[in-house]
């Protein structure tokens, strides 16, 4: 009897041991992908969006059987919006956590710090949340971005004025004095010159500026036809509020970033109408690919999971993850990855073209996404509508801007 019990215990123990062994083996077979991203600090909010995008990608991939049969395991670390910490965490992910691959976080300064570490260890690093031109000027082979360069992102917002009548002749450009927004202002300037629009006012102001009324009053007195703003969400919202307060109604107002974030329309409601914004992606773009299907399918999935519509930065982040996934599938790789495999992935990322829900992705020699056309959207009846390029436009641009007093 005792012997029987002992034997039963032994069998149970053996089963447990083997199950644990299989579980370990299964764990070892997962794709370990590391992300050093800002979850606190200045970029905490934006970084959290990127984290959500990767999480949705992971859940979708795993529910479809993983990549080449192996599930995806994401390891997130918070870099506190501090570039030195980003570099340290990137090294921690590679050396200590021994991740197979990396995905990029948010912010140009953060990616500036992470990319030399990725380059040193020969880890491809795709980001969907940084677009400073200088990121692509360092001759790195392992850094990729699904966003276009910051100066190019705003092209659509200026090119659209060649399609309106009467064509604007003068522009005022203002923007917050931080890397991304100042580059957007440079882009506005470049494309104004190309489109024959004279820039009669150019000013960068501190990000912490409180008095937007004085700044915009100065601009209003110069009577520009259009106002172009290098912005983040808060800057864009403060600008619109101040424009209404001082009754400044140029023929058009366009922002580099902000109006595409759902909070912009939620807070400003009717005041957000007629506003033009640069974008790289909206759910109604005619894009489709593996993993998420159509652009709109991705958006619906996002709404279901997070109860909000995705912004283009989130789409760009998930798009980068999809591109990396497609390379893994094409090469038929399985975890853990060797250095040689990562070199192959880097080469394939440079060589291949990807059709995804985010649109075409084709990385140039400098790692920038060259295939993605910049988009201009306009808020019409409190809804974002694509208005440029014309082949993707779902609505005609409302021009000129309706004066505040007539609304």
């Amino acid at each position, binding site marked *: 009897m005792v012997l029987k019990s002992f034997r039963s215990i032994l069998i149970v123990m053996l089963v447990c041991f083997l199950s644990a062994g299989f579980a370990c083996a299964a764990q070892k077979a997962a794709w370990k992908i590391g992300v050093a991203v800002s979850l606190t600090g200045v970029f905490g909010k934006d970084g959290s969006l990127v984290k959500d995008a990767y999480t949705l990608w992971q859940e979708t991939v795993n529910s479809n059987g993983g990549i080449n049969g192996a599930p995806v395991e994401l390891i997130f670390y*918070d870099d506190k919006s*501090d*570039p030195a910490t980003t570099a340290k965490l990137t*090294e*921690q992910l590679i050396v200590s956590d021994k991740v197979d691959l990396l995905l990029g976080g948010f912010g140009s300064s953060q990616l*500036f710090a992470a990319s030399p570490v990725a*380059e*040193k260890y020969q880890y491809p690093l795709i980001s969907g949340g940084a677009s400073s031109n*200088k990121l692509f000027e360092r001759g790195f082979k392992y850094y990729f971005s699904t966003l276009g360069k910051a100066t190019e992102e705003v092209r659509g917002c200026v090119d659209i004025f060649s399609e309106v009548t009467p064509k604007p002749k003068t522009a005022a450009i203002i923007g917050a004095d931080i890397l991304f927004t100042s580059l957007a202002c440079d882009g506005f300037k470049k494309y104004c010159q190309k489109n024959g629009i004279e820039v009669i006012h150019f000013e960068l102001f501190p990000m912490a500026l409180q008095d937007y009324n004085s700044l915009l009053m100065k601009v209003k007195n110069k009577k520009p036809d259009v106002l172009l703003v290098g912005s983040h969400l808060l800057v864009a919202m403060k600008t619109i509020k101040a424009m209404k307060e001082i009754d400044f109604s140029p023929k058009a107002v366009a922002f580099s970033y902000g109006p595409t974030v759902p909070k912009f329309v939620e807070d400003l409601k009717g005041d957000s109408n007629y506003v033009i914004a640069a974008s790289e992606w909206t759910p109604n773009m005619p894009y489709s690919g593996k993993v998420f299907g159509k652009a709109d399918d991705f958006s619906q999935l996002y709404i279901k999971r997070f109860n909000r519509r995705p912004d283009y930065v989130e789409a760009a982040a998930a798009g980068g993850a999809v591109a990396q996934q497609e390379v893994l599938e094409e090469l038929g790789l399985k975890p853990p990855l060797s250095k040689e495999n990562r070199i192959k992935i880097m080469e394939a990322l440079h060589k291949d073209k990807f059709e995804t829900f985010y649109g075409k992705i084709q990385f140039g020699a400098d790692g920038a996404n060259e295939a993605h056309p910049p988009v201009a959207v306009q808020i019409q009846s409190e809804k974002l509508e694509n208005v440029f390029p014309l082949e993707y436009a779902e609505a005609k641009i409302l021009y000129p801007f309706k004066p505040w007093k007539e609304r």
Partner: protein
Amino acid sequence: MNFKIDRIILIIFLGITAALAFLPNFVESEYLLRLITVVIFWIGIAGCWNMMSGYTGYIDFGPVVYFGIGSYVVAIAMTKYGIPFFPSLFISGLISGSVAFLVGIPTLRLKGAYFAIATFAFAEAMKQIALEFDRTFSVSFFQGSDGITLPISGHDNSFFFYCVLPVTFLVVLAHYYIEHSKFGYGLKAIKEAETAAEISGVNTTANKLGAYVSSAFFLGLFGAIEAYWITYITPSDVFNVQKTVQMVIMTLLGGMGTFLGPVVGATFLTLISESLGARFVEYYLIMIGGIIIVAILIMPNGIIGSLKIRKKLRFI
């Protein structure tokens, strides 16, 4: 008794530094080496703040300005004038120290909150200067919000370890000097009662200036090293007030105006942040905040400060 303890601590400190010098030969993990370098880096930075504010009681809210100046000097020297890293590093320290000398002469005559506000304002002003200078004067120097990309060093972490270790060693050694010299007694006298110290013959302005300039010199070196390590700087990053906050918290936690305070505070906070950050990504900052509150409630003079009072030690 105290003299004996002083000597023992100094010998232990020298021994640990000597042992650390061989560390890269034994640590194979680049990440571990980076972590150790970061700990030593923050010991040095917190020590710089302690050197000035801990001993004199003058609360400096703008030390990050000298860190930022060091970063910009090394970046401009290397990218614009092609000067190699080590001479640029030395120039960074010298320029940071020189700026501190010029700024210190008027500001160190201010007392209490006025000094704190002046130093904070100076740091913010320098950030704005770095942002606006090029546009205002139509030059390409600080490169505004675009920032400066430094040459990729290609060095592994042991290079930066050997850059940081001697600078931190000098900072800690400076603490030992402060604890055992007339200059240091002068600083402590300023903290206790400045007017009384002045009447007793302490050249208070010269003493404060000495501490302020030395602290700025070392901060300039640290700023330069980090810039070369990270390879990219912007005004918002290198003049970030968060760095000041971190060095203040580390020193307060370890013990303000103590020899080992910055060492203990920086090591404790860096390691605890590292350990909790990896396990509790969403909540670790709340946990660290809680730990700091509890530590300060139990030991209001910091870990070393409280130990010093409890054990009636003159020096540690």
